[in-house]
């Protein structure tokens, strides 16, 4: 195999730093918090965002709008499903793909769309054939609907953690992406998000998941004459549907296993 061994490479780096041997683990605060401390940190974050929930939702709505999301605040899960249906009609869609997030137990889009003769393919059903079939479905679909795993008010960001039932492509290949956001998923800042993800990493014994996708609005470019164009490779339209809180206790976050 071409290239240099790690040992050789690191030796050169060390020499450039004027060191003969490897450094002991440096003192670095963000690396030093062990599991229990990190958990405490996240507990504090959860308490803060819980106390500020209303403001955070307003902030998310505002910032997301500025980032190019089309934000819809749904009064009920049914209204959210109705929004997706309206969108599907507008786009004359005949195929909608969706992820397998828990939120679809509350938001009944499958039945509603099928009544109108619009095919809805949940990911697990689509890949029943094979993965190639799954990809073709996503490339054909006019709309991709997903839940989210986290949202960040500071930046108007929806965060997806791809896994079983949550494809990377469902929010990427179709020209329209709809993200359904539940209030308990909203954090205040990027710091909050990465603190929560770090806890998941520590608790999962070093498994950070293979991928984390932060989306803040539609795909865009300004590569020709610095003129902004919305919609290049990713979705041309990005819709953020903000749901009311679930009546029962909030469902646990997928990325935050309990201690």
């Amino acid at each position, binding site marked *: 195999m071409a290239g*240099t061994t790690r040992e050789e490479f690191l030796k050169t780096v060390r020499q450039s730093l004027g060191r003969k041997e490897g450094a002991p683990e*440096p003192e670095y605060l963000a690396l030093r918090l062990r599991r229990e401390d990190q958990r405490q940190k996240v507990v504090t974050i959860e308490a803060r965002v819980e106390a500020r929930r209303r403001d955070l939702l307003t902030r998310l709505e505002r910032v997301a709008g500025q980032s190019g999301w089309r934000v819809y605040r749904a009064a009920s899960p049914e209204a959210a499903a109705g929004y997706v249906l309206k969108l599907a009609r507008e786009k004359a869609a005949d195929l909608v793909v969706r992820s397998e997030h828990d939120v679809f137990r509350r938001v009944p889009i499958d039945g509603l769309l099928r009544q109108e003769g619009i095919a809805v393919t949940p990911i697990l059903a689509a890949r029943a054939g094979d993965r190639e079939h799954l990809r073709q479905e996503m490339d054909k679909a006019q709309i991709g609907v997903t839940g989210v795993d986290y949202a960040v008010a500071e930046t108007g960001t929806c965060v997806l953690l791809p896994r079983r039932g949550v494809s990377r*492509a469902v929010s990427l290949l179709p020209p329209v992406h709809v993200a359904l956001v539940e209030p308990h998923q909203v954090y205040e*800042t990027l710091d909050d998000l990465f603190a929560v993800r770090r806890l998941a990493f520590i608790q999962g014994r070093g498994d950070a998941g293979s*991928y984390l996708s932060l989306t803040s609005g539609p795909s865009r470019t300004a590569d*020709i*004459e610095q003129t902004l164009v919305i919609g*290049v*490779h990713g979705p041309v339209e990005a819709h953020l549907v903000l749901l009311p809180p679930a009546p029962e206790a909030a469902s646990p976050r997928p990325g935050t296993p309990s201690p």
Partner: protein
Amino acid sequence: MAPVQVRTQEFPRASSRALANGRVQQALTNVMGHFDHAREAAIQELTPEVWERYRERGREIKRHAMEYLDFYLELLSERVEANGGKVHFARTAQEATQIVLEIAKALGVKVAVKGKSMLSEEMGLNHALEEQGIAPVETDLGEYIIQLAQEPPFHILAPAMHKTKEEVGELFAAKLGLGGLQQIPDMAAAARKTLRERFLQADMGITGVNFAVAETGTVVIVTNEGNGRMCTSLPRVHVALMGMEKVVPALEDLSVMLRLLPRAATGQRITSYVTLVSGPRQPGDEDGPEEFHLVIVDAGRTRLLADPELREALYCIRCGACLNTCPVYRKVGGHAYGWVYPGPIGSVITPVMVGLPRARDLPFASSLCGACREVCPLKINIPLMLVSLRRRLMEGAPGERGVSWGQRLLVRLWSRVVASEGSLRRARRLAAVFQRPFLRRRVVRWIPFPPFSRWTRNRDMPGLARRSFHELWDRDLKTTGRSKRP
């Protein structure tokens, strides 16, 4: 298979050509202000105080990461492998190219889709892939345009910013058979359609890396178009190319870096997409590559690391803010600099990468006004580094020197003259006499004999005043504080 061609020696002529090129000047005038305004507005929205705090934190993160670079690179590589990825180390750009080619050959890759990577420009990777019968397809719209035009990037962020929409339309007609495109959105739509097919058929995705988190073995890719997500999701192998300085220690460091980069680059709070890749698809995942390779590249970076005066250049996160604000870049544009990285930071990095004497004009392609340092999100002291390189060119080791003995003699003479008041006064009086034949409306425009002819060819100097400040001071100011003769 040679890395990208070095044309740094041609800076004087190439910059003159750019200045005389009306199209390039028009493009620069149209575009450069946008970037500056967007960045400034984003900082105002955040408030300059908060921005300053993030800059300090970001700087501290990079300073620490560079000081313990060996530790963090080792941690990064262990964690990426624990995630199921494969890590490669390359001392040179050629080695990095070899690694990519071997991965591609082992998997029988025919088409490789590429996200933007300046490192791959250093490597001349596209050329090397083509020679092996592998089609590299740039997928960032700007990169795609200049790939079709067979040109190097003009700007590290907006590689095709020197092309008008008419030129892009002609290019799409000639190279893709898509005639009649006049509006920019139609061109973007055409690129979407054409490149979508390539994404779906590609066997390999190649991307750069904006940040690499040592703690979790994660590479972070920041994009607006979504091509980075395509390259990391659809092909069956993903190869990420990173300069070794991209590493940050902890996951939580990202929040600061992600606040700095988009604001400094395009004035955005955050880009449309930020993608964190920690290895290949996991069992149960619906999609994603079967193989993930991370190539960690030195290619001259350890020379910066070992150099106390220049190490800060490794803090650079390639936002382009120093290009956008630089009075030199804003006139001569990106191609004149003759290598991968143009502008102020390029004038520091390039000489170290290609050899100082070969790039001897670059440290002088600056008025040392300090604007680059002001706007740099990491507060890199670029002017100081340019001065350091100038000093080496003048009096450094023989391998670094880049000026003739005549020039050195002149500079020595000059420093002797200005070192004492008496000699400065005498020299001034002498010069005041000698300048007379060359004065045109009180300005010295050109002195037509060497060594002054070269110096004055591109410079106008205000003529020396009839009376020097010294004389005014002695005569009036010292006692009255007021000049009788304006």
